[in-house]
């Protein structure tokens, strides 16, 4: 068929060339001039095909020009041109084959060809095929994208034709996948559709589910007597079951006009209001109508008087319902297709469930690393040294603001973040040392007062930040290479920034562990914490060690601040949001142990994500339940997940 057509047009082409010195496109247009001028959706297809199948290089451009209503007819000789409107509504014409400028024409001398939206749609469909086999890979991808967005039945054949000749394996694979999806929806052959459904059931992508879901869509319908045999029944519905309540079933009948509406309490009230007569309704005084029973009594009186329609009793409803059958009907008439689609969806759901779990684990991991990062500085100052520093959150905030200030100085985001991390460490290290020297060292034997004094520092710092930076959130922009997400499939993905935070948390975990276990400072810190006098006798200066350790913990908080600032709003209240969680993390994990903090963060993070999963709309509830859980958890392990034993445990 196609070959014959081609031959036919080839012949026409030859004859066209023979009688005019115009280009090949002009020739084709002249052949179909009547159709084009008529421009009707019913008759235009041969003209479009003539251009599309011509094989002339400019054919696609011609179609684009036509579709964009830029094609003009010159009245003097009936030739077609591409036109560009100029000032004072004149039109400059260009030759369609050569692109040669033909000069400016007045309004009356040319006719614009205006295809309506129906014709435009047909032209577009023809264009998709052009672009599907366009030599430019970008055009092919664009065509695929438009087809993916707006799949249609006509494109299926075109797509199939374009697959074998595609040189790019990636685009070819994409085309093959799209072909399967279109086959599911549009192929007239049932077995081909089922084969495609089964093939695609191994994927979890959203577009596969989008292709399958309409196949199993149902509609609840009501039938008088039995369901007609030619309908594809999903299931029968019994009024009064969970799937279809009696009320809903009756409502359907009312909506279909098969039954009278029930009288609702609102109807009763309205009817009573209409029939008030001298302070009486149906012989009942109006002021006594303050219960439903009294109202129904008055209404019954009106019914007896024939003024209002009677109530329907439950028996009436029951009898009406019994005369009808209710069923969910698939919109697709073929049971084989709906069964296959149902099975495929079930298979996919199982996989989606599995991947959702994987995604949840990734989420939990990322939240864990955030909590860990926020708490690890505290694990040093509170966990190892036993100092309650309520201003810890403000050190986190200070780090975030340091990052913001650095970004104002260094515009390149990658460099500024790399600079901000050490600078934030130094700034908060110094702040920590200052706090330790000025306040905390006088209070080592009075932990509750440390709490209060550092709280004073905390509110002072918060207000100071507010005074300097204002109350509105300051942006801390992540470098562009952290913008995207690592995507495994349509279900499992994680944003790059969270991966970076995870890596940062891991680095800091290793670093703090290294400092505490393998360096002189770590050894001295542990010695001073366990027994300051004995440590002093051994020649360790407890003052110096305390100062440095507190500085270290604070510095880590500052670095955490830069990381947290990358995804959270940097405000003066940034630290507040993390302080309680951080203390919980350290306490739950077990004081005095970096591993414990990791365990605590993991528990709190995964717990929160787990609760959020069951109630995704409500993160507040998740936090509430998590804290309640922690309070109960402390009952059973007052010293945390990883409890220190022996003398190291202190009091």
């Amino acid at each position: 068929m196609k070959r014959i057509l081609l031959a036919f047009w080839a012949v026409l082409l030859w004859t066209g060339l023979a009688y005019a010195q115009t280009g090949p496109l002009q020739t084709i247009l002249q052949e179909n001039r009547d159709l084009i001028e008529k421009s009707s959706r019913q008759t235009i297809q041969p003209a479009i095909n003539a251009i599309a199948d011509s094989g002339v290089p400019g054919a696609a451009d011609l179609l684009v020009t036509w579709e964009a209503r830029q094609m003009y007819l010159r009245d003097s000789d009936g030739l077609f041109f591409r036109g560009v409107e100029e000032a004072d509504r004149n039109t400059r014409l260009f030759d369609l084959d050569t692109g040669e400028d033909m000069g400016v024409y007045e309004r009356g001398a040319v006719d614009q060809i205006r295809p309506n939206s129906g014709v435009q749609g047909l032209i577009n469909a023809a264009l998709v095929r052009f672009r599907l086999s366009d030599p430019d890979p970008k055009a092919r991808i664009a065509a695929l994208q438009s087809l993916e967005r707006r799949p249609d039945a006509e494109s299926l054949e075109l797509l199939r034709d374009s697959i074998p000749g595609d040189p790019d394996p990636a685009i070819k694979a994409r085309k093959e996948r799209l072909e399967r999806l279109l086959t599911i929806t549009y192929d007239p052959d049932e077995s081909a559709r089922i084969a495609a459904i089964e093939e695609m059931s191994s994927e979890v992508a959203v577009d596969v589910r989008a292709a399958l879901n309409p196949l199993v869509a149902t509609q609840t319908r009501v039938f008088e007597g039995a369901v007609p045999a030619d309908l594809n029944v999903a299931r029968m519905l019994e009024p009064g079951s969970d799937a279809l309540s009696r009320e809903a079933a009756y409502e359907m009948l009312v909506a279909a006009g098969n039954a009278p509406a029930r009288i609702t309490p609102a109807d009763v009230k309205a009817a009573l209001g209409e029939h008030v007569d001298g302070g009486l309704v149906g012989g009942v005084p109006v002021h006594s109508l303050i219960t439903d029973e009294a109202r129904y009594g008055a209404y019954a009186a009106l019914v007896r008087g024939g003024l209002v329609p009677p109530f329907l009793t439950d028996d009436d409803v029951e009898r009406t319902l019994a005369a009808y059958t209710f069923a969910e009907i698939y919109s697709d008439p073929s049971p084989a297709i709906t069964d296959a689609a149902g099975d495929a969806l079930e298979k996919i759901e199982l996989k989606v469930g599995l991947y959702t779990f994987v995604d949840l684990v990734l989420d939990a991991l990322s939240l864990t690393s955030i909590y860990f990062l926020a708490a690890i500085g505290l694990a040093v100052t509170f966990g190892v040294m036993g100092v309650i520093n309520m201003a810890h959150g403000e050190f986190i905030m200070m780090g975030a603001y340091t990052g913001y200030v650095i970004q104002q100085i260094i515009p390149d985001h990658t460099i500024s973040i790399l600079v901000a991390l050490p600078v934030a460490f130094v700034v908060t290290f110094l702040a920590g040392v200052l706090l330790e020297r000025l306040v905390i060292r006088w209070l080592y034997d009075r932990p509750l007062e440390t709490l209060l004094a550092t709280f004073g520092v905390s509110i002072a710092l918060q207000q100071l930040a507010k005074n300097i930076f204002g109350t509105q959130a300051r942006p801390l922009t992540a470098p562009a290479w952290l913008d995207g997400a690592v995507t495994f499939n349509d279900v499992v993905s994680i944003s790059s920034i969270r991966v970076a935070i995870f890596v940062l948390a891991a680095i800091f975990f290793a670093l703090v562990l290294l400092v505490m276990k393998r360096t002189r400072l770590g050894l001295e810190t542990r010695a001073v914490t366990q027994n300051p006098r004995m440590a002093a006798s051994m020649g360790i200066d407890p003052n110096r060690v305390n100062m440095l350790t507190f500085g270290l913990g604070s510095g880590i908080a500052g670095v955490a601040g830069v990381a947290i600032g990358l995804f959270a709003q940097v405000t003066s209240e940034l630290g507040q949001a993390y302080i309680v969680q951080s203390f919980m993390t350290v306490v739950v994990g077990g004081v005095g142990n970096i591993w414990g903090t990791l365990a605590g963060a993991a528990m709190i993070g995964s717990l929160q994500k787990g609760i959020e999963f069951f109630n995704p709309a409500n993160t507040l509830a998740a936090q509430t339940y998590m804290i309640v859980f922690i309070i109960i958890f402390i009952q059973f392990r007052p010293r945390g997940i990883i409890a220190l034993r022996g003398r190291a445990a202190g009091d």
Partner: protein
Amino acid sequence: MQQGFLSKNPSVPVFLGILAAFTLLITLTAEGTGTGAVSATFVKVLGRTLCLALIAVAMDLVWGYTGILSLGHFAFFGLGGYMIGMWLMYQRTRDIVVASLADTPIPATETEINDAIGNQIFGVVGSSEFPAIWVFADSLPIQLALVVLVPGVLALVFGWLAFRARVTGVYLSILTQAMTLALALYLFQNESGLRGNNGLSGLQNIPGLEAVPPATVTMWFFWASALALGLGYLLAAWIVSGKFGSVIRGIRDNEARVRFLGYSVEAYKLTVFTLTACIAGVAGALYYPQAGIVNPAEIAPIASIYLAVWVAIGGRGRLYGAVIGAVVVSMLSTWFTGGRAPDINLGFYTIKWVDWWQVALGLSFVLVTLFAPKGIGGLVDIFTDRRKAGVAGEAGK
């Protein structure tokens, strides 16, 4: 007993005398009852401050005397406000709804009235159903009982869990803070049944008192607050003066030793914790009708820490210290953050108190902790010690 109790606490008659004199002074000068020199708005501020002093007394009992630094007592305060707020809001909305339905041809049924009230109250959180916790909202006596019971039961359960597990010191503080945070977050949800972050509002309109001028209602609340503070102070003073008081001070100073002496430390702590929670609930129930609105932000952990700040600045372990701290700090905060304090012009920079008061407060708090652990109340010692020393010196002659 009465004789011994008062003689052990010379501060009680002095404090009650000052409170009575102050109340009388305000009554004579207030807009509602006296000359009008003191505006009703300011009387409200004073009434609220008295409520804050009451919860500070409770805080002193639990922290200054028993050594439990609770960072959760403001949550109990807020709960008390919520409990009275439920009745106030329900009843007032009911009055409005009934009045608006009076003109309809057919009088409304009870169900219709309730639906309309539900719509009015919960429309703002996208619901119209009454949550189960509002079941007693139509009954003033029950809601008044809940003002004490809800904080009390919460404190009892939480305290039982915490003390049983021997959570002490800073760990307990953090745990109470977590409890407060959990409660605040819970109330922030629209599903909490207490209107989410909108809170309960319009509490200054007392149902049934529409005919009474607002200034007079303000005075009633002022008197009630003063009375509650007086009674609360008396109760606290009585508690700390007896044997019970000695035991809880012992717990504060050395918990293990008291336990080894055979006292049930947990029972004592739990009693104090629960009792002070109840006092906090009462204080809140008096405070929020004078404030007009209660919302979850009031309960946020920071509020409870401020409570600790007041008590610490006023002086722990002395009940009048708590009162002084609460009154001085909260009044100063109102004055400085209200924008009425004169700014200090340094030439190159103008210190605006609205911006710098928090900083000054935070730093002064550090200074008090470091250099004056006895707080403002410590000043009284200088005075009384000198007198005692003088008496002792005369006796020696």
